[in-house]
């Protein structure tokens, strides 16, 4: 197994009393596309800036290719950054912007020219050498910023919400281009975003951060299907989260009781009376006219919202909580105010439990998730 290209051990960052990043441990492998995902203010950008060297680490260590970089300035680190607002030099044309780092390295002129042309070709900006940044669109500026960083052939490229300023269509296109670029060049990408969809589409692994803590680290499918914490379940995609407690444990399963009904889960080492949080993705929630074995939950159809490719149906439970289902509109709509029974496949729900005041996931069906132990994460 390769050695990680980036290793953060016990990294903390605080400004005065304000702890922005708390005890972060993260290993990033060579060639990996790792996304740090979280809401604004969760410490994701700070983490990236500590790797780049713009912020000092309060506690803990950052290793780049096995070397502790505590006393290395940004210009001594073998990583390059693509900034949120591009940060192109306004007084330089495209060629000079891209050549900036090569000039610093005192590379011969002919080689600079060659490498800049190659980099511009890579981001499909051939022939734009003499353009000034002010004459370019947002998407083009972003490409220049990427070329400027890639031309130095860094081991790691750090990207700080690089697509945040672009419109939706361009953003989708750039997502694909970035992913292809990363696969083609085999460079490690550390990508910071608050856009969960972006993270799910592009990443090999996602680190979800909240309030300075990494709540889950895993492949996009793991994060989506088996959120480790209530925050992750809420933040990534949409979730119906229902509270229930363990009523009785019998041979046939564990009976969970809610305020307005009950259902049975097959196994798990839950304690009596334990509080559980059941997360069901809206696409996994099923509505039926007749009760399904094991489930005794029902509600009233309150609203249908047509959203193009899917239709969202909101159901009000007897305790006034609203849950919703998404399904293709072709599936047919049940009439308003009709009573429906709720159910889901046991493998399609996540059960989170409270432990040491943390809500965490117990993966119920260990069959599909071999090699992934949620207990280790939190």
């Amino acid at each position, binding site marked *: 197994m390769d050695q990680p290209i980036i290793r953060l051990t016990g990294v903390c960052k605080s400004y005065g009393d304000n702890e922005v990043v708390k005890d972060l441990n993260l290993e990033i492998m060579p060639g990996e596309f790792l996304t740090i995902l979280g809401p604004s203010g969760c410490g994701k950008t700070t983490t990236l800036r500590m790797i*780049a*060297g*713009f912020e000092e680490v309060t506690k803990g260590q950052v290793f780049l290719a096995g070397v502790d970089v505590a006393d290395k*300035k*940004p*210009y001594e680190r073998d*990583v*390059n*950054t693509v*900034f*949120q*607002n591009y*940060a*192109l*030099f*306004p*007084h330089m044309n495209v060629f000079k912007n891209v050549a*900036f*780092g090569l000039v*610093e*390295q005192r590379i011969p002129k002919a080689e600079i020219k060659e490498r800049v042309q190659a980099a511009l070709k890579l981001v499909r900006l051939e022939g734009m050498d003499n353009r*000034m*940044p*002010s*004459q370019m669109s947002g998407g083009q500026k972003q490409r220049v910023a990427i070329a*400027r*960083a890639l031309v*130095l052939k860094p081991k790691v490229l750090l990207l700080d919400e690089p697509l945040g300023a672009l419109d939706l269509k361009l953003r989708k296109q750039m997502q694909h281009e970035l992913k292809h670029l990363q696969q083609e060049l085999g460079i490690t990408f550390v990508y910071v975003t608050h856009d969960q969809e972006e993270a799910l589409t592009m990443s090999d692994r996602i680190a979800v951060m909240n309030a300075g803590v990494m709540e889950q680290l895993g492949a996009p499918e793991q994060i989506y299907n088996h959120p480790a914490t209530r925050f992750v379940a809420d933040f990534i995609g949409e979730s119906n989260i229902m509270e229930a407690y363990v009523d009785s444990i019998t041979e046939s399963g564990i009976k969970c009781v809610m305020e307005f009904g009950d259902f049975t889960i097959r196994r798990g080492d839950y304690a009596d009376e334990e509080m559980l949080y059941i997360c069901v993705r809206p696409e996994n929630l099923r509505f039926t006219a007749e009760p399904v074995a094991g489930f005794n939950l029902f509600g009233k159809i309150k609203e249908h919202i047509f959203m193009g490719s899917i239709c969202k149906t909101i159901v009000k439970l007897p305790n006034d909580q609203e849950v919703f289902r998404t399904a293709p509109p072709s599936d047919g709509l049940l009439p308003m105010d009709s009573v429906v029974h709720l159910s889901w496949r046991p493998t399609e729900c996540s059960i989170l439990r409270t432990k040491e005041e943390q809500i965490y996931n117990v993966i119920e069906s260990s069959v599909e998730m071999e090699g992934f132990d949620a207990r280790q994460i939190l």
Partner: protein
Amino acid sequence: MADIDAKIQAKKRRNRLLFNSAAITYGSLIYLFLYLPILIVILFSFNTSRMNLTFQGFTFDWWGSMFSNRTLLESFYNSIIVAGASTILSVIIGTLGAVGMYKFEFKLKSVLSNSLYIPIAIPEIVFGISLLMFFSSLHVQTGMVTMIIAHVTFSMPFVLITVRARIAGHDRALEEAAKDLGAGESHTFFRVTLPCIMPGIISGGMLALTLSLDDVIISAFTNGPDAKTLPIKILELSRRGVPPDAYALSTLMIIGTVVIMLSSQLVQNRMLKKRGEETVSP
């Protein structure tokens, strides 16, 4: 109906005409008021008469004699030296000050930054007297050096404030980007920070240059017997009637000022235009 409409239209047109002609007359008067004295100086530098009451004939004599008037030329050179040296010094000190205030947080920063306005706001005569007292208490003979120091003290705050205004809109990520791409502290400054704030430095420098060139009061307190600037010299001469060769020299200075002003604006505008920023109008 149509008749009334036409009448209203005609009245509107008349009113507009009246307004336009009033505006044009007013504007012309303002500009006449501003530029007539200057035009008279230029005109009388070509007058055959020594007395500047009437224009009697055209001559280049004064332009010729100007170049042989040693004291006048000397004071002209002094002006150039004082203005040049004080501008360079105040641009360097002012720019470093502005960059320092931008980069670092320190105690009493706001006090320091507000105190910059004191030399600007204080009456020049007070400033002049205090500088004279300062130099004499140190037993320094006033002359070119004291004048240069004095000019730096009053023009440096202008440079600092102008450059600081420019830096305020500066994106800190640019410096980070430069360092990220391998540039050390000094390369980051000279390749990124300095070019970015150059338009501000040029405006500040121009301000310092013009302030220094036409300063009379502070120069009057800090000059020495052998070091007089042109404004001081002309003031001295004017007590006995201004010689026409001083007109010629003044005309030369007007032309020089206009050329410097226009060219600096041209350079600044080219910089700003390249970066897609709003240009300054002359």
